């Protein structure tokens, strides 16, 4: 399946292991990703705060580029925040022809136009896995079932709320997909309070306590539920849960030390790739334990 591919900013910035692992995993799922390397940041909710017309135009530009990719079924992103920010803009653009025309006027000098309709979609990798590839097809490709691994899903706010804007009418189980994918790759999804809560990233500069208390609590809850690691489809969540984990521990006054995987890394492991090629050495909180467990499973098999 050919897809226009928006990798986002952070995957090429502070979480290069995400970008790298996605590149390795895509061919194994028969995904041909055409990277939109001329496209701009989605705004991450911050530009929307500043000026809606601006962020709608910036994302319309990305959509227009994606729509010009010949033969692409749709657009794929690898970040919950991109998904949420872009869905918000798309909702406004699709709601009014007059507004859309205004926005397209800004794109015209570049020869770009965002077209509404025709069933064009923008989906996060998680949604693509379940809706476009299918859990059965995923299960068939699993080389190394992650049996015995207890994985706590961390969705990221922007991909589960508000449900009306994120297509839950058509796909009511989207807030359960990560659990389903964890199961499909042979691992056991862990139930814990923080799965669909906020990692705190949006306020890390504005109220560090509020930010890291959240991250700390959810990590602690996952640990208390005997999770071996977390997995998340959002690199911004990953930053607050992994990069900031040592600092977060201070805000909940306990040791943490639980690895956080990117979704493509978990998929990659199940599809038979090695931790090193998935960049699992680049995490702040060591993924050593997870790697050992995975190796043990493979050895036992």
């Amino acid at each position: 399946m050919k897809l226009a591919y928006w990798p986002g900013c952070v995957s090429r910035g502070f979480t290069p292991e995400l970008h790298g692992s996605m590149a390795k995993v895509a061919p194994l799922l028969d995904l041909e990703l055409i990277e939109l390397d001329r496209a701009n940041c989605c705004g991450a909710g911050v530009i929307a705060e500043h000026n809606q017309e601006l962020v709608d135009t910036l994302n319309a530009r990305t959509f227009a580029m994606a729509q010009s990719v010949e033969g692409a079924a749709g657009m794929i992103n690898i970040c919950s925040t991109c998904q949420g920010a872009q869905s918000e803009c798309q909702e406004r653009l699709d709601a009014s022809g007059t507004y859309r025309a205004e926005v397209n006027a800004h794109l015209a000098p570049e020869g770009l136009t965002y077209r509404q309709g025709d069933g064009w979609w923008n989906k996060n990798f998680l949604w693509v896995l379940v809706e476009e590839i299918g859990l059965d097809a995923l299960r068939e490709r699993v080389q190394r079932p992650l049996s015995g691994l207890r994985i706590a899903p961390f969705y990221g706010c922007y991909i589960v709320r508000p449900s009306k804007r994120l297509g839950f009418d058509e796909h009511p189980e989207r807030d359960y997909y990560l659990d389903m994918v964890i199961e499909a790759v042979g691992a056991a999804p862990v139930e814990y309070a923080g799965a669909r809560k906020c990692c705190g990233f949006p306020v890390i500069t504005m109220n560090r306590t509020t930010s890291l208390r959240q991250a700390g609590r959810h990590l602690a809850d996952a640990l208390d539920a005997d999770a071996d690691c977390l997995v998340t489809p959002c690199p911004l969540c990953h930053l607050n849960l992994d990069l900031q984990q040592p600092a977060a521990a201070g805000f909940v006054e306990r040791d943490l030390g639980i690895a956080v995987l990117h979704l493509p890394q978990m998929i990659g492991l199940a599809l038979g790739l090695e931790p090193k090629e998935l960049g699992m050495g680049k995490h702040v909180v060591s993924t050593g334990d997870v790697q050992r467990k995975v190796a043990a499973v493979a050895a036992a098999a």
Partner: protein
Amino acid sequence: MPEYTLKIRRFDPESGEAAYWADYTAELPAERSVLDGILQVKDRTDASIGIRCSCRAAICGSCGVRINGRSALACNTRIGEAAERGRDGAITVEPMGNMPVIKDLITDMEAVHWRKVQRVVPWLIPAEDPPEDQEYIVAAEAMLDVTQAMACIHCGACVSACLSMEVDPNFIGPAALAKAYRFVGDPRDGEHEARLRDLAEDPHGIYDCTHCFACVEVCPKDVAPMDQIMRLRRRATEDFQIKDQNNGYGHEKAFVNLIEKYGTNHEAQLLPRSFGDGSLVKGQLRPSGAKQLTRELPTALRGLRTGKVTPKKALLHPRLPDQKQVRRIFQEVESHGERIELNLYIVGELAGEEEEGAFAEDAGET
């Protein structure tokens, strides 16, 4: 007629015992509400169950509870759907979160919700004396605009669901801040700047919102409190240039400037610029900026150690190939002089039904 199991969280403050779950059965059609189910149990089985309720039509805001963990009004949650979403078909009903519980499903709204509402000075402070024998003249769009915040019925569902409040009980919160917008968005009020300054400088104010959409998700009236908070931020930064001590202004400016310059986010500069009201230099040299940066040093070092961040990445960041197009877009949009905001609450879906002036032009206050 279908039967439903309601697992209700009981708490008797006079018993000295902790809260506990009790199971009850209700028999009613699937389209009836969870409140109808609870009232049936009260009527037939146990009239001591405490729940506030009045209008049964999602207007009075009395019956806020958590159903299957989700904050909602009991009266407009259909019992059949609740059962489908419940574990093993049972519907759990417990009191709202983030508030003390008085008894059973009744929480102390005064202690949390109303205290916060009063914090935002929730009455009109007119800019001018009223004209004699006449109404204040106000643009129709402005009144339509604040109707969204006015639609709040003070049910507390947003307060209950608020994830910031869960970790920071002093956060002013979604309901109170949405109420604050009702005044900041009202042209007759003369205290916009003072209100915004107050809420921007308060560490538990508008910049303590963790932007998680939980309140938007649960509000039964589509008030979208988080959206109102974002509008408060927008007014504070754009209309009054309030450079708050919480780095709210700085963070927004930093992010926007970086995208205008590079097209994608230059993370290494995001933090220092946030601490410097958008300026890289200020962020590093100003005492408060330097102090905050220093606090982030251990994190930065960890990033370097693991190879996530390289010195090259920290210093250089590529511009997009057509970055001048992106800059052009910035200039075009920002030179309008007016901010265009398409509020779908007001206009709904117009696709296929276009008319003139379909969206509100918000002149802002310059």
